[in-house]
């Protein structure tokens, strides 16, 4: 009976989360209609005339074969277009959503105000190391199993679920979980190391997970307004890349017995440049 209730609770949670998730995606379409742009023919800039004297046809092909086509000579615009060069978003009506209708929205888990960042290690990463060299997931999993076994030996208690844990074991476990998540996300995260000033492109993403490691809702940027409205286009992209990574990386292969520790995760995606 208890099991049934628990199951019900969990599933309700998933359902609620799903209902929160979908309507959000549905709105976006209307916010971003197609913007028409008038493209003016710029023959005078992009097309060029051959210098006088004319290139005479020559028998040998050493140079000739590089450029044998004649350059196009677009006509000038026949008439000035009535529509402005950069018009207002044209009302291209988005189709009605085929998505299911939203139900009542569930309050989403609220984060505490982000704490001051812990001093974090930023191991030097040379850009040359593009192919990531993080330990494989198998290694990490092997590691975590050993650690779990160790924790059990030390505490002497059989695992009774996520509520029971000693502080010391929890800290060790926390570090292990962090490693595991780091390594898992490294595969999905397209970082912004190749953008200018990548160390200014750190973004925080928060998300909740179900016990099976699937997302319980869409990941959110902690500082969404600042990131997505930033005048720095690279920051906006960094935010989207982080969201994409958190989404793409689901499900998260994390030990279910420590679910309470990882059911909510805040990830600070912070590209670190080799020379800093």
């Amino acid at each position, binding site marked *: 009976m208890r099991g049934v209730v628990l199951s019900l609770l969990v599933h309700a949670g998933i359902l609620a989360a799903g209902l929160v998730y979908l309507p959000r995606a549905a709105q976006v379409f209307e916010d971003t209609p197609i913007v028409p742009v008038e493209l003016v023919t710029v023959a005078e800039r992009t097309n060029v005339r051959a210098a006088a004297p004319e290139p005479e046809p020559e028998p040998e092909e050493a140079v000739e074969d590089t450029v044998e086509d004649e350059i196009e000579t677009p006509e000038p615009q026949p008439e000035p277009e009535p529509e402005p060069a950069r018009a207002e978003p044209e009302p291209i009506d988005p189709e009605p959503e085929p998505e299911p209708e939203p139900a009542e929205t569930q309050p989403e888990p609220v984060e505490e105000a982000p704490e001051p960042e812990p001093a974090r290690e930023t191991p030097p990463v040379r850009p040359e190391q*593009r192919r990531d060299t993080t330990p494989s997931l198998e290694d990490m999993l092997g590691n975590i199993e050993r650690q779990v076994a160790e924790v059990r030996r030390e505490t002497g208690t059989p695992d009774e679920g996520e509520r029971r844990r000693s502080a010391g074991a929890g800290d060790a476990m926390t570090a292990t979980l962090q490693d595991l998540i780091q390594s898992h996300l490294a595969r999905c995260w397209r*970082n912004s190391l190749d953008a200018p000033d990548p160390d200014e492109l750190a973004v925080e993403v928060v998300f909740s997970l179900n016990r099976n490691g699937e997302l319980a809702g869409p990941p959110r940027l902690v500082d969404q307004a600042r990131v997505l409205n930033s005048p720095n286009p690279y920051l906006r992209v960094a935010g*989207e890349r982080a969201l994409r990574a958190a989404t793409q990386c689901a499900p998260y292969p994390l030990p279910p017995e420590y679910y309470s520790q990882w059911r909510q995760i805040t990830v600070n995606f912070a590209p670190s440049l080799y020379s800093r």
Partner: protein
Amino acid sequence: MTRLLALAAALVASLVFTGLSMAQEPLRVDVTRGNLDPLPIALPDFAGESEEALSRGSDITRVVTNDLASSGLFAPIDPAAYIEDIENIDLRPRFSDWRVIDASALLVGSVTIQDDGRLVVAFRLWDTRLEEQLLGLQYRTAPENWRRVAHKVADAVYQRLTGEEGYFNTRIVYVAEGRGIEGEPLRQLAIMDQDGANPSFLTDRSYMALLPNYSPNSQEITYVSFLEGQATTYLYDLETGRQEALFSSAMRSAGLDPDGQSLSARFSPDGESLAVSVETRSGHDIHLYDLRTRSLDRLTQHPADDVEPSFSPDGERIVFSSSRGGGSQLYTMNRDGSDVQRITFGNGRYTTPVWSPRGDLIAFTKQSGGTFSLGVVRADGSGIERILFEGYFVDTPAWSPNGRVLLFTRGEPRTDGTRYEIWSVDLAGFNLRRLATGGMASDPAWSPLIE
């Protein structure tokens, strides 16, 4: 009734659940390591109502796909894997169909041919993971401009997904190399689209033309030729085809030998002046040429050769190479010649500095031992230099307008002499590609973005 109860129970339960979860602090994780893998993107052929529109749509998709793939930042997915057939771009795509083939981004578009013959090209860029439209634009243009539209679409997609300006709607001027009937070397200026389309000669084979550079408005180039005997800087108006030797009278009025060399001239970012190395009695010195007053100001005075000047994007400083320290090294100075600072210190001969459009880096070539390399160094000389390519011969780096990609001349030894081609490499040293010139080519100059 039972169902209602169950729903209510579930609702309450989930509230409780959420409450419980709030008791637990979120697990904080710092992720500093990721990848620089290209973004998988699906680009189904742009849709169209007529045969003609469909065919043009397919052309446009091909150009966009090629542009994005060539950047190394995108991995277009093989269309054979596509599940959903996009017929109406105003319908929401079935994202799961695209996620299952690993597409993170999806570009859908349509081509309409208006009654007056003009093309309307509309597209939507979707994020399949976040299930959001990232961009929706529509271009209207004369039909012969379809390639430009395709490049503009590629630029828009590139910019939306990387945060930086694209560089696909650009052109490249270069030197087509070859040998004439009697084996004499031929060097003709040629121009083509960034992707190799629409090639054409700018100069004929009766004289050598070398070292082209673009003006900021992309209407003019400078180049060097031996038309007057000595290597001389020319200005070439791409619109009219008009050419003029730039400096002879200015050199005379500046008290220089008007028959002395003038070399590769680069425009200031405002397009109003040129930095150029001109031969003086004591060797080559950097000069500033004012295009309005047509006067030359001498910026360096050193008896050693100072050559290859290039402006910073703010126009405040100039980088050049000089043998003043013995071997050739790189130096920067203010645009009035003051505050000269050396920025390279390594072994070997550093030449061809070019300031990045972003401003933070300077590209160079270095000759050390038997090899040449292409590298970048911070403009202030701090930090270590990064080598992006090493090979038998490297010359004349040219930045893409967004500062992410470098074109350069690459030479490889062959039995009948060195073969020169233009290659590109990105700032991380990846995505090495040969530029699609037909024959031997060198001295690339990359135009600014064409609007």
